[in-house]
């Protein structure tokens, strides 16, 4: 009994945690380069509506996911233009992107509301691996390919960030853009590419919601997930691997808030993601951890060459 309980919960955790993970990975890259993007909710909405529209019209859900990524990326460039090129306040620009994204997706999605999607990305079970006790049932039985994509992406992005020159470049731009600039790094280009990565992944997260998770489009269907991702980025202290753990931890909490409802107040469990982000921040800001795993130093600072 207790076994099927744990297996069921963990299996659902993967399904709910995947959009959180995709968005968090993107936001980590964006913030690592020094650009805070609060527009995730908006980019996810744009991704969700364009994915749904594409899959609905062409009957190809994979093409829908592709378009979701492109649309999210395109939306993020808007944030890049305002906050990197025009050096406006990143918080204001990100919030504007959220509102714009929610509004635009609502407007263009009108015609697709209340329509069922016939072609979704089907769940798969992996032969042999699904027979592994426990792990097989959780990971390899009746799960969606997009979940694997997100999980495989995590170590790749982590490796790039910590063990390649590209990663050093990104992190140095986020820590000290002036120093990076003086070594010949194109700060603007790096920041644009990181923001773009964030946008593409947020778009994919939205596409997952409207094509895989619940195949339908409705205005506001992201229901605050974008804000959860912002909290998660802080919780993970800007590390992709901790981002993965955090996304699935948050996913488990949301699922458990219903699973445990007869015994535990759902309000308490729903508050936990935000509460734990605050606790993580407090722990990080205590002691020496701060230098190693804290927020990028130049986060939220527009870079202006020649200025101190």
């Amino acid at each position: 009994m207790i076994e099927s309980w744990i297996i069921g919960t963990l299996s659902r955790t993967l399904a709910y945690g995947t959009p959180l993970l995709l968005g968090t990975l993107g936001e980590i890259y964006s913030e690592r380069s020094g650009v805070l993007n609060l527009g995730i909710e908006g980019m996810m909405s744009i991704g969700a509506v364009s994915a749904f529209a594409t899959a609905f019209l062409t009957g190809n859900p994979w093409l829908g996911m592709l378009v979701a990524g492109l649309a999210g990326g395109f939306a993020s460039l808007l944030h890049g233009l305002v906050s990197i090129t025009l050096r406006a306040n990143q918080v204001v620009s990100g919030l504007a992107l959220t509102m714009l994204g929610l509004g635009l997706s609502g407007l263009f999605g009108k015609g697709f509301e209340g329509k069922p999607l016939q072609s979704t990305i089907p769940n798969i079970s992996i032969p042999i691996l699904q027979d592994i006790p426990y792990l097989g049932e959780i990971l390899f039985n009746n799960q969606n390919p997009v979940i694997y994509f997100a999980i495989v992406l995590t170590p790749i992005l982590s490796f790039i960030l910590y063990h390649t020159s590209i990663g050093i470049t990104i992190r140095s731009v986020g820590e000290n853009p002036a120093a990076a600039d003086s070594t010949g790094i194109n700060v603007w280009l790096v920041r644009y590419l990181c923001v773009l990565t964030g946008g593409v992944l947020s778009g994919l997260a939205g596409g997952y919601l409207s094509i895989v998770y619940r195949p339908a489009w409705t205005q506001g269907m992201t229901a605050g997930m974008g804000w959860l991702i912002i909290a998660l980025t802080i919780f993970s202290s800007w590390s992709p691997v901790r981002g993965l753990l955090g996304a699935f931890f948050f996913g488990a909490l949301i699922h458990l808030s219903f699973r445990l409802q007869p015994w535990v107040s759902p309000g308490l469990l729903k508050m936990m993601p935000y509460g734990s982000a605050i606790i993580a921040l407090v722990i990080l800001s205590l002691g020496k951890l701060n230098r190693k795993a804290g927020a990028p130093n130049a986060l939220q600072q527009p870079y202006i060459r020649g200025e101190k």
Partner: protein
Amino acid sequence: MFKNKYVLTTSMVFIILSLILVGFSSTVVAQDKKLKAGFIYVGPVGDYGYTKSHDVGREYVEEMFPWLETFIAENVQAPDVESTIDQFVNNRDADVIFTTSFSHMQGTISAAEDHPDTLFFHCSGVQRRKNVGTYFSGLYQLYYLNGLMAGALTESDKLGYVAAIPNSEVKRHINSFAIGVKEVNPDATVHVRWLNTWFDPPAAKEATQSLLEIGADGFAFTEDSPTVLQTAQENGAFSFSHYNPMYRFAKEGTLSGQLTNRGVIYADILYKVYYGIYTSNNLKNVDYWWLLKEGAVELGAKRGMKINPDYIDELKSKTVEVPYLGKISVYDLVMKRLKQMKSDRVTFDPFIGPIKDREGVLRLKDGEWATHDELWTMEWAYENIKGPWPGEPKE
């Protein structure tokens, strides 16, 4: 010359006459001014649930009455109600305003004080004043019929109920569903999970999943999207249409459902406003509580399909013993009860005593019918309901 003068005079007369006619016709047009009705929604029209059902009603009356002009505001939350009403009255000359969420009550009442010449109608509300009436279409009779079918079809004897907000409307729905279940299947239990919001598809999905894990194989719900139904079908369970025909989202999984025809109420209200029967002075006692009898709600997986044909044979093959009716198939029982509640003289209601809540308190004595106020303030949970129940009366 004469001829010219004659032409001139006649043309002058003609011009003056036509000017008078134009003036006259313009006053006729002015008298024939359109009635302007504003609708304020709590969610997006695209929720395909609650807000959509109101908008279908709005389209219905706009089509019906050539003298009617309507406009809407979507996603209006409680704090924005008054400013939206101000804008409707000042900028768009609204004569009648419909506010469609329980959460709009305070805003509607205080805005009605500021705009005494405007008529207001508040859906699901309990407060009225001389220019604020209330209206509501009750779905509980249909939830009872859904409960009869669900109780007959469940194999695990566990039914799930995904509920939005723990208010007395939703509790009334759950109780009627549970009463229907108990009538045909005394062993079955109804397991409730709360979303604490009207619209949050991911949460609705996880709530459904968590109920599937404890073995539920049929689902009812009161929330504003087809998520529960979609998730149920994915996992081989059945569920129901809610507010709107949701059959096309889940052709195998939609057993039946409850559909609203809000246009019927809107038409009655607007007709009476247009012909001066309702004014901004006499709404104090105007309260619509329309049910099956008035045609404000109907049973169906979609319009014209009361019960999904895939399930009819099984419902016909299951029989139960019912007082007064004897041995009867569940299918016939559903149809009989539907007829009893639909007829002009209603001869059945789900809430007829003896009814005990799950704490053992007798809520309705033998043969007693629940009154309007008892239905509207319902807080208790029926015997076969499991799971949390915020605000449950203790004693």
